[in-house]
């Protein structure tokens, strides 16, 4: 037999970590019986709504929503989607904390969730900065002092609209998506934590 290919190795490792029944099980341990368990899915749903509405806004550009009622409607979906995203994420976080869900080699699951929360804050922040209204002006004027004091402002200029828009539309959503993806794969890998 010839030497294993890179593709073969990746496939083998992937299947070992995530056999189909583990990746998409249709059963769960019997202790999974509380509404608190649905808040991860609700958070993911809200994230998808935010991405989709953001994509619609991107179709017509960042100034569209100021002059079009359809644009304003999609901006509203984007804003309320974000409020719901944080709402569900925090309830999910409270639930996972009181379950001590990091037990049993699940510390990385907790960590990816926590970092997702922090990066989501940065994503929302750049969103507020790129609204092109009074809010953006004030938030930029205020935030610059905090960021400058931390040394970040020298490279992450909140008053540079072009830079902030690209961080908001490209870099940060990609980071959040990768973190959420990793988080979900870790939940599937280890399974849902058993009762205390």
């Amino acid at each position, binding site marked *: 037999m010839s030497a294993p290919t890179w593709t073969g190795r990746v496939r083998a490792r992937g299947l070992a970590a995530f056999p189909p029944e583990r990746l998409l099980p249709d059963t769960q341990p019997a202790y999974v*019986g509380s*509404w*608190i368990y649905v808040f991860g899915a609700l958070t993911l749903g809200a994230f998808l709504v935010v991405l989709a509405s953001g994509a619609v806004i991107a179709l017509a550009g960042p100034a569209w929503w100021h002059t079009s*009622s*359809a644009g*304003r*409607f999609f901006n509203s979906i984007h804003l309320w989607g974000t409020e719901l995203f944080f*709402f569900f994420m925090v*309830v999910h976080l409270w639930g996972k904390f009181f379950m001590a869900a990091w037990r049993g080699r699940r510390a990385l699951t907790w960590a990816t969730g926590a970092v997702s929360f922090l990066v989501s804050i940065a994503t929302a922040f750049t969103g507020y900065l790129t609204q092109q209204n009074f809010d953006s002006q004030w938030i930029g004027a205020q935030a610059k002092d905090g960021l400058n004091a931390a040394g970040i402002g020298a490279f992450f200029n909140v008053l540079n609209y072009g830079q902030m828009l690209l961080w908001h539309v490209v870099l940060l959503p990609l980071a959040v998506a990768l973190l959420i993806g990793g988080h979900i794969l870790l939940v599937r890998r280890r399974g849902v934590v058993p009762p205390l």
Partner: protein
Amino acid sequence: MTALPSLAGLLAAVVPLDGRPRYVHSGWFLISVANLVVIVAMLVVFALAILLPFPRDREQG
């Protein structure tokens, strides 16, 4: 697609949230009514999520 803009215009802010902002102020603690509603809602939803019975697995029942 043309129906959507006029529908959106019709629906624009049925409950207008612009206007004089309402705040709860006690000493150095200051919070908007809107944020207070959101935080209270989160606590209520959390409590309900934990307390409300979750559908059982009928096959196992």
